[in-house]
């Protein structure tokens, strides 16, 4: 035990100074084999922030150049929105696809939902009127279909954690009903992808309700408790 003459306290440590007043300690030779509390080991990584800065600057630069060129050309249509959308989507993929702590089902569900929204925006605003509707007619239902199958696949492969994915599957199944409703009101003109997605969704829903009835009920109760 070491002693601080100034504070008049005993200090349980091998160190040379008092933690209270930072004066040197008196006392016999070290007796503790080890300090009670461990040393600080830094976990800071120096490389990552630089890459992030570089990519951020490159993205901003690209967006500015694209917008400038597009505005100088001034033909009434902003084609630069396509690469700009792609750049922003890249950042979403980095943030919510790679760096997130969420599970695979969340990543798939979130990123495809955003992708569908972006593609529909392109479709409505940039495509010329004769070809308009590709995103609504084909991309939206078929991406949702792919999503459904992918998340179901994850659930079947990684069965240990299936409860974690169930919620996202249910969300995408819910979204899959939307194209059919849009088709019903005549907003979607080509019907077969929407119908295919809808029937697949119903099929998958039946499968999971059939195999995991309690868990589906529980999941809904948990997520929606007030």
């Amino acid at each position, binding site marked *: 035990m070491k002693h*601080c003459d100034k504070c*008049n306290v005993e200090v349980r440590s091998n160190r040379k100074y008092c933690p209270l007043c930072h004066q040197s300690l008196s006392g016999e030779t070290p007796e503790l084999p080890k300090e009670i509390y*461990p040393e*600080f080991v830094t976990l800071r990584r120096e490389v990552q922030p630089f890459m992030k800065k570089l990519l951020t600057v490159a993205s901003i630069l690209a967006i500015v150049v694209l917008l400038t060129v597009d505005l100088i050309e001034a033909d009434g249509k902003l084609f630069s929105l396509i690469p700009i959308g792609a750049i922003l989507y890249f950042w979403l993929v980095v943030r919510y696809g790679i760096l997130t702590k969420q599970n695979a089902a969340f990543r798939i569900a979130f990123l495809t939902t955003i992708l569908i929204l972006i593609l529909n925006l392109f479709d409505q605003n940039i495509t010329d009127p004769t070809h308009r509707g590709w995103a609504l007619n084909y991309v939206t239902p078929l991406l949702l279909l792919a999503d459904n199958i992918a998340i179901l696949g994850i659930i079947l492969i990684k069965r240990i954690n299936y409860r974690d994915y169930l919620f996202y599957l249910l969300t995408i199944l819910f979204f899959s009903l939307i194209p059919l409703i849009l088709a019903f009101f005549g907003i979607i003109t080509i019907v077969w992808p929407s119908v295919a997605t809808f029937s697949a969704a119903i099929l998958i829903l039946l499968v999971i309700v059939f195999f995991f009835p309690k868990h589906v009920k*529980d999941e809904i109760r948990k997520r929606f408790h*007030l």
Partner: protein
Amino acid sequence: MVKHKFPSDWFRLDNAAKIFPVVSNRKETNTFRVQVELTEAVEKDFLQLAADAVLERFPMFKVRLKNGLFWHYLDRNERPFLVLPLKHRVCGDLNPKENNGYLLQVYYRDNLIAIEIFHSLADASGAFVLLKTLLYEYLLLKGYPVTPDNQILTRDSTSTMEEFEDAQQTYFDPKNHKHVHEEKGFLIPGTPIADLNVGLIAGTISTQKLSELARSYGATITEYLVAVAMNVIYVTQIRYREHLKQNALPVKIFIPVNMRKHFPSKTLRNFSIFLKTNMKMNRPDITFQMILEHTKESFRLGLEKDELIRKMSENVAFEKNLFLRLTPLILKKYAMRIGYYLLGARLNSMSFSNVGKVDFPKSMEPYIDNVAAAVYAGRMNTVNCALVSYKDKFKITFTRSIMETTIEREFFRTFTAMGIPVEIESNFVEEY
């Protein structure tokens, strides 16, 4: 071992717990630590086995936090739980990559076993129940002749509904929920420690001497220590500097009250209400006696049953607000965060949690040297304190997020000046 099956594998957050997931981040972690020092080195493998068994016994701790549409909730976590070597940072945020989403962490180092736990799961009283069970199972696995003596919830006992009830929802009074406005408190200034580290300085004093000292002032130990802390804040931060604007704010010490002592609840979740001292100290003539009188008065008023129920009901009324309940979590999160930083975060100068006396069965006592607790220190509450007594060792643990050790130094010098020996330990955060 009996495998406990539960009808439900998820838990709502209790009333007090709801705010923590929303306002916690790397700086304000809202975790606390309970630790015990054994008389011999801890063996990791036995501790791991004990931890696995104990988590099966307490389904309410074997959980992780998930987002619902309206509220967070605790969902059963089937991933492995790992005990880890103790880290330097005291009460840091719980890294989901390291502990598979668990909201608590069991650490070991030499003779130490420490549990760090997120405040949403339990309060200190609940955490000590967990620590006791863990220690009991550990000692049992080591082959020592320990007996539970009705003081330990062993792994063979069953987990009951009572253990995870939201006691505030049970004991509140719908008629008595008046909101009382609070003003901001004095914050202890200082230089922030780099890398979000937290400094820890613990002093051990003889329980008997401390209780004699407190009695000579006609106060309980907690009242006396709170008064000493207030006096130290006054002497080191405020006296003769009254003209400074920030020193006009009242010094408010936040003292959690263990409600299990006032209501017959056995819950392990959060069940504490706070009381506060509230004294404007911007005058040069305040004596220790005046501070002590004020502290005693604050305790008397704060511990009145009506007042305790009022605070509890105020919290419950807030949660029961239909408008708030129906707001989706994603918006509620921001609303609560803004509200907390506007109203809640700057109300206290310091928190002073007295866990009280910790008892172990007689058969376990030979293996235990001392017991301690620590709370996180954030950017607002820069210095916090936790008190635990075990046998004749009264351990006062200060945690701080600032470099300056003025408060701790003067606090402990108060006792050494009166001839009471103090033994100090520290994590020497200033070296890194």
